[in-house]
C-alpha cells in the first residue's frame, strides 16, 4: 500500500511508428531511482520524427524530480523543433508536471576567476585586510587606554563585581593547569640542562639554568600562552555570542558602552591576574627544577636554594614579572577586540576565536623578543 523503495526502478521504452516517436515511461519515477534514466533521457534522439509522445500511462509513481526529467527532455526536443505531447497522464501528475514546468531556471553560478588572477587578488586583498586589521586593533588599543584613563578619573564607574568575577574565572580557575605545566617545564629544563652540562662536569649549574630560564622567560611565557588559549578565546566567544544575539546592540540602545561593560572588566581583571599567575608559575617551575635536581643530581632542596640565591639577582625576578601585566593586557585586548568584530553568524564566532588565540600569542612572543633586546641594551 505504501511506496516501496524496492519498486521497479524507473525505466524507458522507445517505440516508433509511422506517426510518432513514442517514449513509454515505466516503473517508479521517484528521486532515489532516477540515476539510470537520467542518462538515457539526455541521449534520446527522435530519429527524424517531428511528433514525440510521452506516454505516462504505465508509470507507477512520479515525483517532482521525475517530472523534471520529463520536462527537461520535452524542452530539449522542442528546442530541436519537435512537437511533444503527453499521453495517459493522471490528474495529479498533470498538476505536478505543470508546477515543475512553471518554475524559472536559476541563474548560473558566477564564474570563478582564473587561478593566477585569484592568486594575485588574494594576495592583494589579504595584505589590505591585514593592514586594516592592524589599524583597527591599534585604534581599539587607543580607545582602551582612553577608557582606562576615564576610569582612573572616575573610579565609581568601575565594575568591581565583574572584575572580581573575571579574576576568578581567568586566574583562580587557571591555577591547576598553569601550575602543572610550569612544574613540568621546570622538570624538562633541569633534565635537558643537566644532560648537557654534565659534559663539562658542571651539573650544579643546572640550578642556575633552571632559575634564570624560568624566572626571566619560561614562567611568564607559559602562563601567557595558557591564558591566551584559555581566557582570551573565552572572551572572544562570550562577546561574539552576545554580538550574534544582538545583546551588544541592546546594550548600546540602553546607553551602556560595550567598551565599559564588556571590555574594561576583562582587561583590568586579566592585567591584575597575570602577575599573580606568573608568580605562581615561577614558584612551581623552580619546584619542578628542584625536584629534578634532587632526584637526578642529588642536590638537596637546601643546596638548591643556596645555589639559586647565589645565581639570581632580584632583577632576574623583576625582568620576568614586569612583562606579565603587559601580556595580560594584550591578551584581554585582542580577545575583546575579536569578540566585538564578530558578525551575525555562528561561523564567524569560531573564526574570530581562533584568530584571537593566534594573534595574542603572536603579539606576546614579538613583545617578548622586543623586551629581550631592550633589556640587553639597558644591560639587565
Amino acid at each position, binding site marked *: 500500500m505504501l511506496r516501496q523503495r524496492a519498486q521497479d526502478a524507473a525505466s524507458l521504452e522507445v517505440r516508433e511508428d509511422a506517426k510518432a516517436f513514442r517514449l513509454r515511461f515505466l516503473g517508479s519515477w521517484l528521486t*532515489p531511482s532516477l*540515476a539510470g534514466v537520467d*542518462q538515457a533521457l539526455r541521449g534520446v534522439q527522435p530519429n527524424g520524427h517531428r511528433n514525440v509522445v510521452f506516454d505516462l500511462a504505465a508509470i507507477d509513481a512520479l515525483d517532482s524530480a521525475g517530472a523534471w526529467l520529463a520536462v527537461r527532455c520535452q524542452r530539449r526536443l522542442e528546442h530541436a523543433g519537435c512537437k511533444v505531447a503527453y499521453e495517459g497522464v*493522471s490528474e*495529479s501528475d498533470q498538476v*505536478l508536471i505543470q508546477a515543475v514546468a512553471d518554475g524559472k531556471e*536559476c*541563474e548560473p553560478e558566477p564564474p570563478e576567476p582564473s587561478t593566477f588572477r585569484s592568486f594575485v587578488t588574494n594576495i592583494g586583498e589579504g595584505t589590505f585586510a591585514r593592514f586594516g586589521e592592524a589599524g583597527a586593533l591599534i585604534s581599539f588599543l587607543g580607545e582602551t587606554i582612553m577608557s582606562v584613563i576615564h576610569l582612573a578619573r572616575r573610579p565609581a564607574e568601575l565594575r568591581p563585581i565583574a572584575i572580581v568575577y573575571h579574576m576568578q574565572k581567568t586566574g583562580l580557575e587557571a591555577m591547576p593547569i598553569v601550575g602543572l605545566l610550569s612544574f613540568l617545564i621546570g622538570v624538562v629544563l633541569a633534565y635537558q640542562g643537566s644532560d648537557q652540562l654534565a659534559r663539562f662536569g658542571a651539573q650544579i649549574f643546572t640550578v642556575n639554568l633552571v632559575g634564570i630560564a624560568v624566572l626571566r622567560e619560561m614562567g611568564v611565557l607559559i602562563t601567557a600562552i595558557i591564558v591566551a588559549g584559555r581566557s582570551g578565546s573565552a572572551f572572544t566567544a562570550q562577546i561574539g555570542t552576545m554580538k550574534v544575539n544582538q545583546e551588544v546592540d541592546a546594550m548600546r540602545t540602553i546607553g551602556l558602552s560595550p567598551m565599559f561593560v564588556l571590555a574594561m572588566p576583562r582587561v583590568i581583571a586579566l592585567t591584575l591576574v597575570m602577575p599573580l599567575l606568573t608568580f605562581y608559575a615561577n614558584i612551581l617551575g623552580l619546584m619542578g627544577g628542584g625536584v629534578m635536581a634532587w632526584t637526578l643530581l642529588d642536590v638537596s632542596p637546601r643546596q638548591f636554594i643556596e645555589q639559586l640565591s647565589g645565581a639570581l639577582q632580584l632583577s632576574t625576578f623583576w625582568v620576568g614579572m614586569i612583562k606579565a601585566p603587559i601580556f595580560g593586557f594584550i591578551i584581554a585586548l585582542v580577545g575583546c577586540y575579536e569578540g566585538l568584530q564578530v558578525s551575525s553568524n555562528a561561523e564567524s564566532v569560531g573564526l574570530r576565536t581562533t584568530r584571537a588565540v593566534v594573534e595574542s600569542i603572536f603579539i606576546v612572543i614579538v613583545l617578548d623578543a622586543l623586551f629581550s633586546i631592550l633589556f640587553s641594551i639597558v644591560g639587565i
Partner: protein
Amino acid sequence: MAQENAASPRGNGARRPGKGLAIEVTGLVNRFGTQVVHDNLDFSVRYGEIMGLVGGSGSGKSVLLNSIIGLNRPKAGRIMVLGQEMRGLDRRETRSLQGRWGVLFQDGALFSSLTVMQNIEVPLKRQTRLPTSLMEEIAEVKIALSGLPPDAAHKYPSQLSGGMRKRAGLARALALDPDILFLDEPTAGLDPIGASQFDQLILGLRNALGLTVVMVTHDLDSLYTVCDRVSVLLDKRITVGTIEELSAMDNAWLKDYFGGPRGRAASAALERAEDR
C-alpha cells in the same frame, strides 16, 4: 498496475493511498522532571490533509513535533509514521523513513557555511546516489517550487532575508519529495504579504506534490486559509476538529482563541475573500 487506465489515481496516488493515517500517535506521555507535558495523548493525521497544531505557549507543541520526528524520546506511547512504528526501526529503516519527511524549522535552520543550492543537495547526497548534474537540476526545481528568486541559488543564508531563508528551508525540506512535511511556525516573523504568499505556496505545493502537512502555527490567518483540520493541545491532550467545530465547543480557551478579536478578524477576512 500497468494496465490501469489514465483516469484512475496513480502517480502520486501510489504514494498517497488516500485512506488510513499518515501519522498516528497513541497514548503518548512526555515528562521532564516532575512536569508532565503530554498525558496519554492521541494525535492523528490523514493522508493528504493539512493539519494545524495550536496551543498556548509551553503547551508542548514543539515537544510533540520532536517526538514524531525522533528528536525526542517519549516516556511512553506508540508513534506510527507512514505505517511504520518508530520505536521498532533499525538504523537503515530510520534513515529511509527520514527520507520520506521534510522538516522546516522556525528560522529555516539552514547550514550557514553552505549556499542555498548546497543546502538542498545535502539530503539528496545523504539519501540517494544520483549524478551531480542531476542533483543540481533537482535543487533548481526545488528552488523554483518554493518561490525563491532565480539569483538565490548561490547565495549564503546570511545574505538572505528572513522570508527567503524560510523558503530556502522549505526547499531543503522538499529535496527528496517527502510524503510528509512538518512546518514549525512557517509564517512567524514574516510581513503580512509574505505570510499570505507563504500560505498560498503551501496550499499549492500540497496540491502539486500530494503532501501531507503538519504545521505548528499561531497565525490565525494561516489556520483559516490553509488548514483542513486543527489539533489543539489542551490540558496535555489533543482536541481535534475543523475550525467551526472547535469554535463551537464549550471550552474557555477555545472560545478565547477563535472568538477573540484576532480570531474574529481572521474569520471575517476569510469570508470577505470567499465572497469576492
